């Protein structure tokens, strides 16, 4: 089986697929490779979906929090300084 990129053929190679799935696995701390070794692609995608949903819910919750404290936000004098301070905390 050739190892070159199959850009002209119809199927992506197993290697490419595995590489992409593996990369996603590294994003999931709970499926840390050193402890779990090979995990099925289905499980990785499953966990990825849960992870995305969790993150989207967090954005939701944080939007709610911000809407509550928007009044107390002193955003006057907003400039790069504030941004830098915020991100360096």
């Amino acid at each position, binding site marked *: 089986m050739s190892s070159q990129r199959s850009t002209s053929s119809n199927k*992506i190679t197993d290697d490419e697929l595995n590489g992409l799935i593996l990369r996603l696995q590294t994003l999931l701390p709970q499926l840390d490779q050193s402890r779990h070794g090979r995990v099925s692609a289905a499980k990785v995608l499953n966990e990825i979906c849960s992870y995305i949903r969790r993150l989207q819910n967090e954005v939701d919750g*944080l939007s709610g929090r911000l809407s509550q404290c*928007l009044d107390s936000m002193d955003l006057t004098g907003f400039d790069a300084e504030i941004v830098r301070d915020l991100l360096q905390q």
Partner: protein
Amino acid sequence: MNNPHRLNPTSLKSRFTTRFLRALTKIRAQKPISSSSPTEIFRRYRRIKVAADKSMAYSVRSRRIWSRAMLCKLRSRSYRRQDPCSGRRSGKTNQAIMKKSSNENTTTRREDGVGFVEEADELRQLVPGGETMNLCNLLDETAHYIKCLTTQVQVMKKIADFYSF
């Protein structure tokens, strides 16, 4: 004093933060007299949520299929009077997105012999523009999308914590 965590002003995180704070300033200015009625707070929550997604999508711009899809969706929201995503401008964008994603890899969407079609379909619903992507693109876009989501959460959390005292 040497700051080892010097922030890269062109980083995604930095671009997102600047845009998002700017948007928050606008939203705060828009509100009527200090009314904290539930309706008003809900409206603000919706606006902030849109601002968060908008700030992220604009920070990524059109470099990603998912960000293009999100920008198209956001733009069609503001052209609500016309048909969403079938008006001239947004309709063209939609076609462009689909054209771009299908050109890059001719793999068909349903992979035979692959044991995770259901999970992939579920993922397609979660990633913006996922329905138009082939499997290869979907997995690639997902990784980037997650990276951006975590940045978004991280920055929003910092802002919320900062202004919560």
